[in-house]
């Protein structure tokens, strides 16, 4: 389904011609390079897969060729290499870009229904099953 992405990029590129100059900047070093420490790289990868690429649509920064995603990968890897906790990096990015950047919603004033409703679903499912199956046993 993602070939649409290319079309969208094409359209975006056509509209924003001057930006093309910006794209010719070389990507940040850790955008396309892994950390030498396998465990740290795995941590970075797991985190990157749950961060939204803000310039793309519906893609994580781990799945994107957009320059901004590259810069964010560089950020994540640099900070992981410096020994920062992945969740602290996420918090830093959220503080900077807003909740929108994280694919892992946390319980907050605006997102509590995302967690309350599944709980409710479990209750409803349990109730339906209990009523149906008990009555007919």
């Amino acid at each position, binding site marked *: 389904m993602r070939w649409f992405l290319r*079309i969208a990029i094409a359209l975006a590129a056509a509209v924003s011609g001057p930006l093309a100059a910006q794209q010719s900047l070389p990507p940040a070093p850790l955008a396309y390079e892994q950390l030498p420490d396998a465990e740290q790289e795995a941590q970075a990868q797991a985190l990157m897969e749950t961060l939204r690429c803000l310039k793309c649509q519906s893609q994580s920064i781990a799945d*994107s060729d957009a320059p901004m995603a590259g810069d964010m990968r560089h950020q994540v890897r640099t900070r992981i290499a410096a020994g920062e906790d992945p969740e602290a990096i996420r918090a830093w990015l959220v503080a900077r870009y807003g909740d929108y950047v994280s694919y892992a919603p946390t319980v907050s004033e605006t997102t509590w*229904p995302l967690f309350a409703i*599944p709980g409710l679903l479990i209750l409803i499912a349990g109730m339906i099953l209990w009523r149906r199956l008990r009555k007919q046993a």
Partner: protein
Amino acid sequence: MIAELGLAALWLAAALSVLQLIAGALALRDGSGELASLVRPAAIVQGLLAAFAFVMLLWLFAVTDLSVKLVATNSHSAKPMIFKLAGAWGNHEGSMLLWVTVMALAGGLIALVERRLPERTMFATLAAQAFVGIGFYAFLLLSSNPFERLPEPALEGMGLNPLLQDIGLAFHPPTLYFGYVGLSVAFSFAVGALLTRQVGPAFARAMRPWVLGAWIFLTLGITAGSYWAYYELGWGGWWFWDPVENASLMPWLAATALLHSVSVLAARDALRAWTIMLGVVAFSMSMLGTFLVRSGILTSVHAFAVDPERGTFILFLLGLYIGGALLLFALRAGSVAEGERFSITSREGALVFNNVMLSAILGIVLLGTLYPLLTEVFDVRVSVGPPYFNPAGAIFTIPMLLVMAVGPLLRWRGDRISRIKVPMIVIAAIMLAVLAVVIILGSYGLLADLGLAVAAGLAIASFLPLRGRNLLRVPIATWGMVVAHFGIAVALFGMASESAFSEEKLAAVSVGDNVEIGPWNVSLLATRPVAGPNWTAIEGQLMASYDGGEAILLKPQSRNFWAPPQETTESVLSTRWNGQLYAVIGNEASGGEGAERWQLRLWWKPFVTLIWYGGILVALGGLLALIGRVKGDLKRRYVQSRLAGRKEEGESA
């Protein structure tokens, strides 16, 4: 002239659907109104007219009639014929015409062949089908006319974008549309049966082939969509919980639940209200999917054609049909008896469990998809992605899969757990053994571990219903169930394996360098420039050898299109029985002194292909079930006509 013919046919078809609605409604009220004899012919002619209109549109695209706006904006005289034709439905107006055409043809087909149901129920069903049809005709004719002319014919079409000339793009949307529209028939049957309160096995048997057919198309559409996302995007992901993906998954979940409950209704005359409800929900999800994709509401690349007027129109239709059907359900559900009783440990009991779990998963996907849209209205932007969907979905998926392993072993109506004790112990032992091995090997995350264990147990369990039976005499439909359930196990194994065992390597390499990834050794032999019709590319020549074996040549490309300027990567896949090597070449790496270095992205994904093979098996299982059921129906019809014939003979003698 051709365009005007098409438009006239479309208006006539719309008028006939109004006639079909009125005649059907009157016939329903009076038992057999004067117009009753017109209902079936109206449905059939309406189908033919819509098909005629669609053929006219194909013709316009085939000859590239540039005086038609849709052709001028979406086609080009130099396109290959196959893409000219595919261009007819590769845009908003054309795809809505395709939707309406398939729906009208489906309505015509049931009018032509379906004779098992009481005639009143058929009138109600066809009236419901016409009622849904009118809304979409109105949408097409009033806000999305595909036959609109330009004041001045264009000199050349605008649609030569080679990126749009993808065979996948050409056939993926119609596949999903067939699925969506098949569910509209199920919806009409459900509404028809509700109106006449005749919900029973005959109704279920009439509805079942449509549900099965729709489900097969949806399965194939989702499987193919996932594979394209995997190879097109160039980063190795195969499912993103993107709203557009969810838009196709939600009708599939509802159709899967409906498929199982309609089987219970056909075989055992139980779960009547539940089946009706699912019929309504399944088509609601289809319309919701169309709304999400077509309205431009999504923060998604798919919705690049933003057009609020159309969005509002579809939203209105959505509210009208879903709201209307739910209201009808609320009014009538009380008078539809629930049907035969069954015990908790029975085939029906297991299927009820499966239905409730599928509905809950549907609820989670619906919530996660719509919630960000809802908060956006209040200027709060949140993202809901894999970290939410995976665990929340798994809460319901894993219990469902466990019950799915043993459910088919249970007898209808009532059974004892002790009767299937041995197979249950075997399945549980396999799952626990695999789980233990996986955890000892090095835990890969809870979901992946559980996925591998459940997949192994389910794979064995799916064949147990055949145990002790003469394989040649097992009904085709039962084979269908076995194959489809096995396909789920195969796909699940692929997903869990991809998540657990994938290895990734990003490297900046010079010509001659070696990269180790998993069992593979990959070296960059050379790079060379290549040119296409409107792009230039750097092609990497990679020698990849598996486990020290003979090396194969892989040629990933990094392409630069110049009109419009755009970079794309052409990934290459080397498929073995036990997985895929996925290779991408990127730009020249920066910061290297001396020799040129290139960015390579390599993945070794063990058993990843099983995801799509599993999907194909599931669809194949559906096809076998469909063949089995249709064969059974035809046999039943033949026997009945023979009996009737013999009776007549007896009377005349």
